[in-house]
């Protein structure tokens, strides 16, 4: 038996596999998983739907990662890093499933993450903005996690086994994320005058982006029995927000929804300016050296 003091040494074993320098494609998150599309399910729509859910997680994970080394406490560093990691893992599996369902979109998760342009991303606009302060961080995370948890709870019983499995894995993680964010919203809302004001202001910034989460999209309509009906998630979401806001002594802001552009929003590839900055940071190096290997 060979003893390895450092299990990571094994990754440096010399072989002929040249790995692409910027991605994670040498470890397929769906290796060996049966990715056959179930009978009667629209493959192209399923791929788009996986992109939608994957992009949500990918972009928010990036925004969370930008907070690392800037958070007020070490415990928040580990929390936000782990939440970002959970979301990145969900994004990888979803993007890999999208590529498997419709290879015309992109060969694999790396092509999809690093080489799509802004108009090809399918995330909701909620995840694009950079948080101005910690209150916005936890406020947006609460809204996102409560929504995504309700959505994933619905997907667990869906007809696509792979999506159902990804959702089953994600449900427990999202519950931890939601509870973490909710506890902070309460602490800030039910805190000092300053923390309450910062939390109140954060909610007014976040709230215009909430209605988009529950807008039914035509991709979802092409996936009966697989996709969740976005509008049906609203009661579960409201129940959670009501509970948290009541404990925090805060109210739902009176904010008009962020307008669509000719009826098109994030799910249609129409994004806010903020997404450009995320993609510039995420993609710039890979695009500059697209064939680099190591």
């Amino acid at each position, binding site marked *: 038996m060979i003893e390895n003091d450092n299990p990571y040494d094994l990754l440096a074993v010399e072989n002929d596999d040249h790995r692409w320098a910027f991605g994670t494609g040498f*470890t397929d998150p*769906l290796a*060996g*998983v049966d990715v056959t599309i179930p009978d009667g399910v629209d493959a192209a729509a399923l791929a788009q739907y996986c992109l939608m859910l994957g992009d949500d997680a990918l972009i928010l994970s990036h925004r969370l990662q930008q907070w690392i080394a800037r958070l007020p406490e070490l415990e928040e560093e580990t929390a936000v890093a782990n939440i970002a990691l959970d979301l990145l893992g969900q994004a990888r599996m979803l993007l890999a499933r999208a590529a498997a369902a419709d290879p015309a979109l992109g060969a694999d998760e790396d092509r999809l993450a690093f080489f799509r342009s802004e108009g090809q991303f399918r995330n909701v606009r909620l995840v694009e903005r950079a948080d101005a302060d910690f209150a916005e961080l936890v406020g947006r995370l609460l809204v996102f996690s409560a929504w995504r948890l309700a959505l994933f709870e619905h997907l667990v019983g869906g007809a696509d086994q792979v999506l159902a499995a990804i959702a*089953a894995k994600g449900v427990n993680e999202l519950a*931890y994320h939601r509870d973490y964010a909710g506890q902070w919203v309460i602490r800030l809302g039910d805190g000092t005058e300053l923390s309450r004001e910062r939390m109140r202001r954060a909610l007014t910034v976040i709230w215009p982006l909430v209605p988009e989460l529950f807008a039914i999209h035509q991709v979802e309509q092409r996936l009966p029995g697989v996709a969740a009906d976005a509008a049906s998630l609203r009661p579960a979401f409201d129940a959670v927000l009501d*509970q948290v806001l009541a*404990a925090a002594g805060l109210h739902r802001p009176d904010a008009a929804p962020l307008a669509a552009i000719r009826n098109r929003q994030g799910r249609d590839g129409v994004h806010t300016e903020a997404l450009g900055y995320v993609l510039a940071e995420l993609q710039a190096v890979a695009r500059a050296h697209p064939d680099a290997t190591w």
Partner: protein
Amino acid sequence: MVTATAWAVAAGTPDPELPMLTVADLGILRDVEQEGNAVVVTITPTYSGCPALPEIAADLRHRLGTAGFAPVEVRTRLAPAWTSDWITADGRRKLEQAGIAPPGPATRRTGPVPLTLLTGPTSGPTVTCPQCGSRLTTRTAQFGATACKALYRCENCHEPFEYVKEI
């Protein structure tokens, strides 16, 4: 029996982050089968973003290859989702010996996940201190150095320790 030996070799693979535990102790190793002339090992990730899975896969291939089993294929199985309930009694004992509190039973529920909002020293599950055995422990952080662990402090012996969260 080829498969039984292959299982034994695979089951001896340590977890890179918790090297006192093997992938069998953690319930990550799901299956070892012969398919044609290849040995197929099936593993299940603990958390969606768990970064240890590639290392575990590489280590499995290396150990099985060295033991004479080749070719080796490592497959991921996502469903049923990994739960901390799959950590064996042996695994829990080893965690405790290493000063990490093992998880309690993961709650199985059928409906939506209830919101946990209690904050302060009483929040989080009651965990026994692996050093002194006291139940007077406080959660200091919901997340630790890895996604699977939380940080606690014992109010009796004042030692900090990690706790594997139930999921």
